[in-house]
C-alpha cells in the first residue's frame, strides 16, 4: 500500500502518549479526529503573523488575514467541488449549518407540507426538522432504511407531492453504513423538494463532489476531518442559498442599516453575521490541504481494512452483535448481550482504548435496532493494526470479566 500509517502518525503528537500506563489507542474518531501538525502550524502562523479582523479593515495585517480567509473559502470550495467560492458559507459546524437551513426555509413551509428524513439520522439532522415541523404544522416523516443502509421495499410512498424538504445523512455515525444517496436525491428532486445531505461522517474518508451528488445543501464539521473545533461549512446551490432567510443578523452581513430598514449584503456574506471564526477557516483549509496531499484512496482502504479486521476477529468469537457492515465502512458498532456498553467502555478505557458507548445521538435508530446503545470503535488514517488488535483483545477480556454472573 502506498501509504504508511506509522509515518503519518508522526504528524499527530497527541497519539504519542500512554493512558494509565497503556499505549493510548484513540478509536473515537467519529466523535472528533486529532489534528496534524500541519493544521496546528497553520493556526499558530495565523496568530503569530497575520491575525486581524477581516473585510472591514484596510491595513497590512487585515489585508493578509482577509486574503487567507478568502483563500480558505476557495480551498473548501475546491475540496467539495463547489462551482464557486460564494457557495461556501462558514458555520460553527454541521449542527449550526442544518439549523441555518431549517430556519431559513421556514417561510416556505405550510401546514401539512412534509419534511422527510431517514431512520439513520443523527439528532443534528432530526431535531431541527422536527422543531420546524412543530412550528409550521408540517409533518415530519421518516424514510425507513434497513440497518444495511438499503431502501425498504415501498420507499416510494414516502415521497409525495407535499415533500418540501428531504434531509439525509451520507454515512451513519452510529453504525457506519452509507446511504443510497444519489438515488434518494434524484427521487426527491422529482417532487421538487429541497435536499440536504449531512456529510459530517463522510468528508474525512470519502472524496465529496457536491455537483455530482446534486443536492441543494451539503453540511459538515471541521473537527471531524482533522480541522479545528468551532468551524464547519454550509454548502448550497446559489438559488437554494438565495431563498434562505438569514439566520443571524448583525455586522458584515449588511449593506446599509437604517432604523426603518436594512439592506442585506450579497452571498456569501449575507449568511455570515459577525466576526467569523477566522482561525477556524484557515485551520480547516489546512486540514483540506493535509488530506489532499495524501493518497486518499490508500487512506480509505487502510481505514476500511482496520474496521474489517476487527469485524472479522469479533464475528469469529460469537456472542457479539455487530451492527456495522462487514466491509466498506471505517467503524465497528456492536453490543454484547447482558453487558452494558458503558461497562465495556469503562473497561476498555482503563486499558488505554478510547471508544464510545451509548446512543451516538441517534435515539430513534437505537430504538429501531432494539438496543439502548452500542459500542463504537471508529478509525482514522493514523490508526494501526496493533490498535485494532488492542481493541479486540481488551474487549474480549472485558466480556470475560463483566460477563461473569
Amino acid at each position, binding site marked *: 500500500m502506498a501509504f504508511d500509517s506509522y509515518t503519518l502518525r508522526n504528524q499527530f503528537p497527541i497519539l504519542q502518549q500512554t493512558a494509565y500506563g497503556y499505549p493510548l489507542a484513540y478509536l473515537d474518531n467519529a466523535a472528533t479526529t486529532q489534528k496534524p501538525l500541519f493544521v496546528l502550524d497553520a493556526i499558530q502562523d495565523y496568530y503569530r503573523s497575520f491575525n486581524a479582523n477581516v473585510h472591514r479593515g484596510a491595513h497590512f495585517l487585515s489585508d493578509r488575514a482577509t486574503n487567507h480567509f478568502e483563500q480558505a473559502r476557495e480551498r473548501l470550495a475546491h475540496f467539495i467541488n463547489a462551482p464557486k467560492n460564494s457557495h461556501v458559507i462558514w458555520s460553527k459546524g454541521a449542527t449550526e449549518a442544518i439549523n441555518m437551513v431549517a430556519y431559513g426555509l421556514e417561510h416556505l413551509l405550510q401546514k401539512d407540507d412534509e419534511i422527510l428524513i431517514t431512520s439513520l439520522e443523527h439528532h443534528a439532522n432530526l431535531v431541527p426538522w422536527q422543531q420546524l415541523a412543530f412550528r409550521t404544522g408540517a409533518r415530519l416523516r421518516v424514510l425507513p432504511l434497513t440497518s444495511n443502509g438499503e431502501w425498504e421495499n415501498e420507499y416510494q410512498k414516502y415521497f409525495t407531492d407535499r415533500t418540501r424538504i428531504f434531509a439525509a445523512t451520507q454515512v451513519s455515525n452510529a453504525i457506519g453504513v452509507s446511504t443510497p444517496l444519489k438515488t434518494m436525491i434524484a427521487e426527491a428532486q422529482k417532487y421538487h423538494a429541497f435536499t440536504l445531505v449531512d456529510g459530517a461522517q463522510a468528508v474525512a474518508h470519502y472524496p465529496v463532489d457536491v455537483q455530482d451528488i446534486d443536492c441543494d445543501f451539503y453540511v459538515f464539521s471541521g473537527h471531524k476531518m482533522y480541522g479545528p473545533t468551532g468551524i464547519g461549512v454550509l454548502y448550497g446551490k446559489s438559488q437554494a442559498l438565495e431563498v434562505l432567510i438569514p439566520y443571524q443578523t448583525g455586522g458584515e452581513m449588511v449593506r446599509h442599516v437604517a432604523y426603518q430598514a436594512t439592506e442585506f449584503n450579497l452571498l456569501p456574506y449575507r449568511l455570515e453575521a459577525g466576526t467569523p471564526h477566522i482561525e477556524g477557516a484557515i485551520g480547516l483549509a489546512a486540514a483540506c490541504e493535509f488530506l489532499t496531499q495524501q493518497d486518499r484512496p490508500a487512506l480509505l482502504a487502510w481505514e476500511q481494512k482496520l474496521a474489517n479486521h476487527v469485524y472479522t476477529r469479533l464475528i469469529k468469537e460469537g456472542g457479539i452483535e455487530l451492527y456495522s457492515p462487514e466491509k466498506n465502512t471505517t467503524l465497528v458498532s456492536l453490543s454484547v448481550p447482558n453487558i452494558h456498553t458503558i461497562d465495556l467502555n469503562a*473497561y476498555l478505557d482503563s*486499558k488505554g482504548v478510547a471508544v464510545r458507548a451509548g446512543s451516538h445521538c441517534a435515539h430513534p435508530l437505537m430504538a429501531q435496532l432494539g438496543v439502548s446503545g452500542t459500542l463504537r470503535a471508529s478509525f482514522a488514517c493514523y490508526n494501526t493494526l496493533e490498535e485494532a488488535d488492542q481493541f479486540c483483545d481488551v474487549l474480549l477480556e472485558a466480556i470475560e470479566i463483566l460477563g461473569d454472573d
Partner: protein
Amino acid sequence: MTDFPTPHTVKQQLQACRSKEETFKALVTLSKALPRLSGEEKTEDNKIKGCESAVWLIVEEDAGRRYFRADSDAKLMRGVLVAVISLVTGKTQQAIQEKDLKAELAELNLSSYLTSSRSNGVLAILQALQA
C-alpha cells in the same frame, strides 16, 4: 447473591485494588450483592435523571432511619451503588446529609466516577441519597 456488604468490607475490597482492572473486578463482585428491583419498581419516578446508564433508587424509612434499594442496567454501576449505599444505609437523614460522600468515594478508588463527564451519573446519585 451474597449478603449486603458492610462499609468495612467494601473498603477492604476496593482499597486493595492496585489497578483499574482490579477495581473493575471488585465492582463486579460487589455488584452481585445488590438485590435487583422488580420491573414494577423501575418507574420513571424512581429513575435518576442525568445518568448515562439507567439508575433507579428507592428510599424507605423505618424508625427514623433510611434504607436504600437501587438498580441499574450497568453492572459496574451496580457495584458502585453497593459501595455508596453501604456508606449511608441504616443511617438518619441528618447523618447522611452530614457526610462528605465525594471524599469517601475518592478514598475507595472510585474518584474516576466523579470527573465531570461521568459525574452526571454518580453526582446525581449522591444528590438523591442526600436529599
